[in-house]
């Protein structure tokens, strides 16, 4: 095998062109290291779900190859998928079955799942997502958040080596989001690799160790989250009651893109010692309350990479 043994997902020039001619995924080279929580980021319509479907063997790639857990997909689907738990494009349930019966059915679909432990495993999965009390209720009576939890429970029916979670906190309230995020961290600390797609940048920033950014079917960047954000320069922030004067001084000192909002002046930091900039402000009689550089967020990184706002659909 030519690839590194500690790579859980590896794609080479993975491409999908739909029958209409639309290029959904274009030459994707994705590498997901084992044990990482990998954030897969991109606006709606950027090809995230198509990529996930190709990785799960639901869609045949037009060109290129994908390996999951070291095996080619979709050819080795039956060997690979029992080790993979997936939540793809939101949960799908049998409304006329109870939550528990839904899980029993999904578990029965896996020929490697032991029927003798089925009920125990289903109960454990329900407990893990906090649905034990509602397990006997028909799934059509579930709220969106409960459905999302049940979908997550289906991914946790067996110990998995890889979890593929497509927008797992969709439809959850803030409390539910926190619970799911801490569940993801817990699973990751057990050694499960988590592949998490999201359009929520702060979510990726909170839980992920690695991230890849997609836009319009292409991979823009991938790497360690801290490094992605570090590649972008932070912004100089000055808090002062004399905002107008401060803005003038900052421009004078060579700062670009100066923005004044109430008593906050932000700017691209100039290429000189910031202590001199501060001294210049004070010398000009600006009463400085706060002075510092704000660390760049992943959103800044995204905007810097794509040159556009995040919510633009491809």
């Amino acid at each position, binding site marked *: 095998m030519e690839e590194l043994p500690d790579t859980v997902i590896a794609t080479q020039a993975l491409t999908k062109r739909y029958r209409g001619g639309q290029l959904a995924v274009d030459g994707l080279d994705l590498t997901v290291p084992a044990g990482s929580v990998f954030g897969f980021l991109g606006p709606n319509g950027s090809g995230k779900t198509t990529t996930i479907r190709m990785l799960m063997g639901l869609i045949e790639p037009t060109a290129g190859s994908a390996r999951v857990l070291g095996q080619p997909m979709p050819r080795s689907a039956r060997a690979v998928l029992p080790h993979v738990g997936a939540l793809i494009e939101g949960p799908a349930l049998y409304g006329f079955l109870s939550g528990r019966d839904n899980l029993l059915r999904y578990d029965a*679909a896996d020929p490697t799942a032991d029927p003798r432990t089925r009920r125990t495993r289903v109960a454990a999965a329900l407990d893990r997502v906090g649905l034990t009390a509602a397990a006997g209720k028909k799934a059509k009576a579930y709220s969106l958040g409960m459905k999302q939890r049940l979908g997550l429970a289906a991914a946790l029916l067996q110990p998995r080596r890889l979890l593929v979670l497509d927008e797992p906190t969709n439809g959850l309230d803030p409390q539910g989001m926190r619970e799911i995020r801490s569940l993801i961290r817990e699973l990751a600390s057990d050694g499960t690799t988590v592949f998490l797609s999201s359009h929520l940048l702060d979510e990726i920033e909170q839980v992920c160790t690695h991230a890849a950014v997609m836009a319009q079917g292409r991979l823009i960047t991938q790497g360690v989250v801290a490094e992605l954000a570090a590649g972008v320069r932070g912004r100089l922030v000055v808090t002062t009651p004399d905002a107008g004067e401060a803005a003038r001084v900052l421009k004078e000192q060579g700062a670009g893109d100066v923005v004044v909002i109430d008593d906050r002046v932000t700017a691209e930091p100039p290429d000189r010692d910031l202590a001199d900039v501060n001294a210049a402000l004070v010398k000009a009689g600006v009463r400085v309350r706060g002075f510092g550089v704000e660390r760049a967020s992943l959103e800044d990184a995204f905007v810097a990479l794509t040159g556009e706002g995040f919510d633009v659909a491809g």
Partner: protein
Amino acid sequence: MSQDEAVLPGGAIEGARKAGGKVNPLWTFGLLRSELLTTFRRWRTLALLAVLAAVPILVGIAVKIETGDGGSMGGGGPQGGGPAFISQITNNGLFLVFTALAATLPFFLPMAIGVIAGDAIAGEANAGTLRYLLVAPAGRSRLLLTKYATTMAFCLVATLVVAISALTVGALLFPLGELTTISGTRISFAEGLGRALLIALVVAASLIGVAALGLFVSTLTNSGIAAMATTVGLLITVQILDQIPQLHALQPYFFSHYWLSFADLMREPVYWDDLVKNLGIQGLYAAVFGSAAWARFTTRDITA
């Protein structure tokens, strides 16, 4: 599976699998069991069976009322071309079984099969549950076979529901006893009962073709309703075409052409020609549309 294997790095599935406990080949039938349970617990399935069970009750009551006035029933099945069993019901309740099967086979039974078969794959795609079954991983061929086996089970259950309902109503409303075959010979009630069971099995087998056709249609679309409507539409079309004399060269290849041959089981000796042709046609449809469904389903992109 233990927690240790969950942290194994990639590329070692076979090793993990060997260490993680044996996979029993019988576990693969868990899906079939789940499918049967799911299908027969659906409100819709139960409603279809209830409609089928009601047909013999209505026929039985109609015959009872008609003959209660002193008049005698005319010949001819209620669907027109059916065998003339109906006139015998007043003499022997067992004939209600044959009448009810003759009445439901042209439309009610295949329509019910069309609904179940048409919904089999398309309904799962529509609900989005198909993608979760496939990543479980159910395996495409295994899922398709399971769906087909379940549709067949429904054919049998549906036919037996009609037969048992008819037998019950027949026993309650009319006398039972020795009966006369179409050829005029007398057979005992026990043998008559045996023939009735055999006929029910042949009727169930007559539905294999529609089931395969419906399953194929079901793999073509992501809409359960569209698949059901198409299958039932095809059924009606074929039934109509089977009545047009100019098409008689094609008619032996229609899945419904030899359906009513089951009446030949009531001859003495049994006239096998058409019965065998019927089963042959059903086998042909199962092979052709089964392969087509497999070819389509195993290569298709699952985007729903």
